[in-house]
Structures are given as C-alpha cells and as structure tokens.
C-alpha cells in the first residue's frame, strides 16, 4: 500500500493486513523464517517492502531472524519479524537481549496449537504467558492482541509506535484464525495515521542507557561510539556485572518503562461494564463471540458486560477490578487451558467469582452458544 490520500477499503487476509500495517508504520527491515501460520507476513513483505525502500531476508532460523532485526534496529531501521510458537520459543533469549539493550523491534507471533509442534495449522491461544514471561530474568513485556483483520493492520502500526516510544520489543500476539481469515478493512488517509519515531540523541548526549526513563537511541556509524551489551550496564552502556545498585537501577527502570505507563499502553474495548451482573473477559479470535452476548442479557433480564482485551501485557487490572465491583461472576473464554483466567482472578482479588471457559485442539472455536450456556448455568448457580 502506498501513501494514500483518502481512506480506502480492502479485502485482506489478516497476515497481509499485518504486513501492510508494518509498511505504513515505517518498517524498513524484515527478517524471518518460514513457519505456519505466519509465513504470509514474510511473503507479502518480500513482495511489497522493496517497493518502499526496505529489505527482506529469510534467515537460517528464528534465532538469526531476531538477531538480524536487532542489528537492523541499531542501524536505524524500524524492524520486524513474524513467527509462530516454535519460532517464538527460539527467539526468547534475543527478546530478553532486546529488552535489556532497549532495542525497539516488533515480533509477530501467530499462535497455533502447542506445545511443541502440536497442531501446526490449527488455532490456539496458548502463548499468552510465554509472551509475558518467556525470557529469563525480570522483565516487562508489551503484548497486543488483535481480534480482526482491521486490527491486524491497526495494532501492527501501534506495535511499532509503542516499540519506538518506549524503546523496547513489542509482541503482536495474534492467532491463526485472525491471521488467516479475510475481511473488509478500511485504511485511513495517511495523514490520519499517527506514526511515532524513536528519540534520537543530540550531538552532546552520551547517556543512551539511563538517566532519562526512556533515553535517546543513537544509530551506529554516526560517531556516538555506543557500547551496546546485554550484560548489566550503567547509563553509558558500560558493564557492571557485580554491583547490585547498577543492576537494580537498570532493571527497575526497564520494567518501570512499561509498568509506570500501564494506563497509556493498556487498551481494551468495553461493553456495559457499569452495573453489569455478569462479566465476560476475552481477547483475540475468541473475543469475536462476545458481540453475540449483547442480546442474551435482555432475554435473560441480566446485565451482561464484557471487556475485550486489545493489550494483554501490561495487564489492564483497573478495568477488570471495575467490572468486579458489580459483576458477581466473570467468565473468561480462551483457547488454552487457563492463562488469562488466572490474571483476571488475581486482579479481582475475590470480589467476583471467575469462571474459565476453555477449549484446545483442532482449531475449534468457543462458540457464542457455548458461552451463553455457561453464563446461564453460572447464573443458576449464583441465584
């Protein structure tokens, strides 16, 4: 998609919309390794990105892919990779490196059914906790969850913007269904799309790893003599591998960049959560069933509210707590064996009963009818 002067409508696949969003966001480098169900992102970018002055390279594995993305980012390019569960597992060490070195980059994970090779072509939502805690050590992650082709486009742009703003890796945690389905989407006038670029240093700057909450990021080859390391380092990039204070200052700032800005980063869609008696929290492909519940409340004379998470991490606890003020029961449908469920339970601190609705395997969705049945059953239990 070239810069457009007016809004336009497209019939796109989710992965195509992701690739197009990346181009609009200013992505100039993509490195990846073939994997179902994410390969279309690489294929579409291989075709389109060179037309926008960018480079696409297929690396020898996913470890190399994220490595090349990190190198490209320090060379000044907005950079991205796309993968699925097995590749995402291989990238974990480098995700920690990108976090520690404050390297902006976007990692797209199109979830399939795991663990291991699992069901490679079938949908799953089992990587939610891996996206939060996958690398070793203390860290905080930013993870976005699109539930439509429209959002594959929009949240890819947001992923780049957040990566650039906070100088940290951002994960677009999509799923096979959202990535492979085709929908009509509207792309706005180019001027209406906000694009964020990383803060560059002034010539006299030398603290690229601290002092400020989000320090400026130099580009290699511009004379800043930047020292980049995944070891614990001070604000100038020099290693301090024994001093507890340097480690605390660094890691607490890196985590704080995300947690202190939770309200600015966390995004969600709400429906009737004020005074709802029954609440539902969901995300990704599973959350597409939520809209079918709006009528159910009227029929059952129960106020049903829902929260659709567009950001999984940092977890938007406040809005969940708000729902729990009135909701007696909160249902959490997801295509795994309970992941966000525990996070909702933790957030409500006993203020509501949290009920999981789970399904795995075969790429089968949780249908609106199943959620309705669970809600009716739950209501009987409550009254």
């Amino acid at each position: 998609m070239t810069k457009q002067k007016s809004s336009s409508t497209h019939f796109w696949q989710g992965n195509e919309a992701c690739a197009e969003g990346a181009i609009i966001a200013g992505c100039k480098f993509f490195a990846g390794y073939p994997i179902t169900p994410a390969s279309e992102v690489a294929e579409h970018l291989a075709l389109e990105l060179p037309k926008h002055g960018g480079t696409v390279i297929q690396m020898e594995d996913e470890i190399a892919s994220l490595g090349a993305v990190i190198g490209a980012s320090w060379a000044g390019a907005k950079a991205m990779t796309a993968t699925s569960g097995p590749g995402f597992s291989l990238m974990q060490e480098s995700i920690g490196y990108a976090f520690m070195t404050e390297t902006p980059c976007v990692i797209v994970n199109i979830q399939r059914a795991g663990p291991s090779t699992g069901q490679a072509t079938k949908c799953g939502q089992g990587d939610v906790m891996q996206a939060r805690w996958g690398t070793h050590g203390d860290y905080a992650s930013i993870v976005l969850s699109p539930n439509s082709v429209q959002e594959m486009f929009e949240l890819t742009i947001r992923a780049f913007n957040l990566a650039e703003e906070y100088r940290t890796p951002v994960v677009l945690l999509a799923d096979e269904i959202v990535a492979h389905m085709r929908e009509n989407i509207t792309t706005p006038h180019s001027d209406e799309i906000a694009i964020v670029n990383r803060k560059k240093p002034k010539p006299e700057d030398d603290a690229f790893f601290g002092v400020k909450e989000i320090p400026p990021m130099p580009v290699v080859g511009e004379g800043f003599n930047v020292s980049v390391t995944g070891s614990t380092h001070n604000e100038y990039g020099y290693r301090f591998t024994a001093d507890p204070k340097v480690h605390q200052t660094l890691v607490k700032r890196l985590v704080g960049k995300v947690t202190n800005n939770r309200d600015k980063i966390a995004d969600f869609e709400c429906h009737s959560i004020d005074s709802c008696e029954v609440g539902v929290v969901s995300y990704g492909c599973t959350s597409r069933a939520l809209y079918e519940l709006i009528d159910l409340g009227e029929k059952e004379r129960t106020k049903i509210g829902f929260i659709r998470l567009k950001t999984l991490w940092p977890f938007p606890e406040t809005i969940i707590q708000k729902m729990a003020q009135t909701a007696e029961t909160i249902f959490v449908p997801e295509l795994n064996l309970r992941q966000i469920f525990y996070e909702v339970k933790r957030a409500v601190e006993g203020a509501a009963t949290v009920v999981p609705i789970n399904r795995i395997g075969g790429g089968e969705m949780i249908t609106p009818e199943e959620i309705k049945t669970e809600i009716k059953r739950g209501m009987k239990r409550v009254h």
Partner: protein
Amino acid sequence: MSTEEFSTRKYLRDISLPFCPGCGNFTIINCFLRAVHELGYEDLRNFVFCSGIGCASWIPSPHFEADTIHTTHGRSVPVATGLKLVRPELNVVVFGGDGDLVGIGLGHLIHAARRNLDITVIMVNNMIYGMTGGQVAPTTPFKATTTTTPYGSFEHPLDATRLAVAAGASYVARWTTFHRKQMKEAIKDGLKMKGFAFIEAVSQCPTAFGRRVGLKTMKDMLTWLKENSVPRDEAKKMTESELVGKIVVGEFARRRLPTLTENIREVIGGVTKGVKTS
C-alpha cells in the same frame, strides 16, 4: 598509509583489558589495530564491531573506541547481517571465539559465508571454552584433557577455515599468534576485500587450556603453535595422517565474488529504483 605514528591508545577506550597474563587476545588486538592503522584509518568511526560471548568477544567491546554491539552467545553474525544490510557503507567486523562462532553459532557463520555478506570475521581459536573455565570445545585437539573431558577428548576438532572456504567466503586465512606479521597482513586483506572475510587466529590460552595439556606458559604455548604450524604449500605435499594435529596456516581463499548487497541490487534493484530509503 597513516602518517601518524602507531599507538593502540588512539583506538582504545581508557579501560583496562580483562585478559589473563599471557592471553593471545593482546596480540590479536595489536595485530588488528596495527592493520587498521596501516590501512590509514585515524579512528574507528567507520567501523561497527559485533561480538558474542566469550573471552574473544571482549576484544572490541567495550575496549574499542567505536560502536560496539555485544550480543548474546553465538549471535554476533546475525546481528551483523542486519547492520550490514541497513548500513552497507559501514565496515562491520565480528570478533568471536571458537565456541561462539563454530560451536553455538556455527549455522550463522556458514550462512553468512554462503551469502557472501560483506563483513570481516576474526575468529580467535584458543581450542577451549576459556571464560567458563576450560571446557572442551568443537576445536579442542583429539585426546586433549579439559575440565569436561578429564580422560581426554574423544572427538576430533572442526577445521573452521576449510569450512569457511567450502561455504563460499571471499577471503579466508589462518595464522597463529606466533605469526603476528602474517596475521596483521591477513586482517588488512580481509578488511580490504569485498565479501565475507574469515580470519582464523589460532591463539594461546595458558590459563584454561595450556596448563592442562602440559603447556603452562605463554612461551610454551607459542613454541607449540610455532612447531605445529605447517604452511599451506608444505601441507599440500603431506598425507592426511601426517597432518593430524597440525595447524595448516596461510591464505585459503581470495576470490572476488558478488556480495550479498550487490546481489540484492542486481536481482531486485529494479523494484527499489528511485525509492527514497529513509
């Protein structure tokens, strides 16, 4: 040729080097910086250094007054790939040990050579995992005693130089820390040559390798490196069994092949033509 007198100081940060007494890294730093000096670079402004984990990875980072990227273990070459593709005008140089580059990171090295990525890789081969205390490496000689092969290594070492030639590198050379002049000249050639340049610097680690194989001092090790080295021409006349345990030194490849960047330009240059790149 630079007119100024050579001093390592002008290329180094004012930080003391962390290497053990007798470490080959001192020699390699000298060879590299002397090569840079003789090529006429007054500073390292046009260079970006990438390194992984291990003693050799500490050579550039944080000691060189330059942009230095100290990556995770074995991943310096992929990071260098991203750097070079986005900023082809920079001299991208990778320093790493044998464990880093042909142990955990071997796949990347082969593919970068195959792509003929225009970077220079200097592999310091001390035949051991030195930083972690002397464990067996993919380059450890057969039957050598290490902390994880207390009865002797039962594996044969990898010949990284011949592998780099086979994978398609433009320039390949191997010298030891005994051959300082030749190593400096090889580094100069590697930096000047277009394409993937691989220089294997066989080096001594008296601390973690030598003292367990009866070569306790730097002098013992250098003598051993000298006596075990065979120039490439002589090696051609020797049988395979005569060459077991020998270090064949010299230039193994020098060929002008299109680089990755040049190939990208040739194959898809028409698509990118006229596009503003930033």
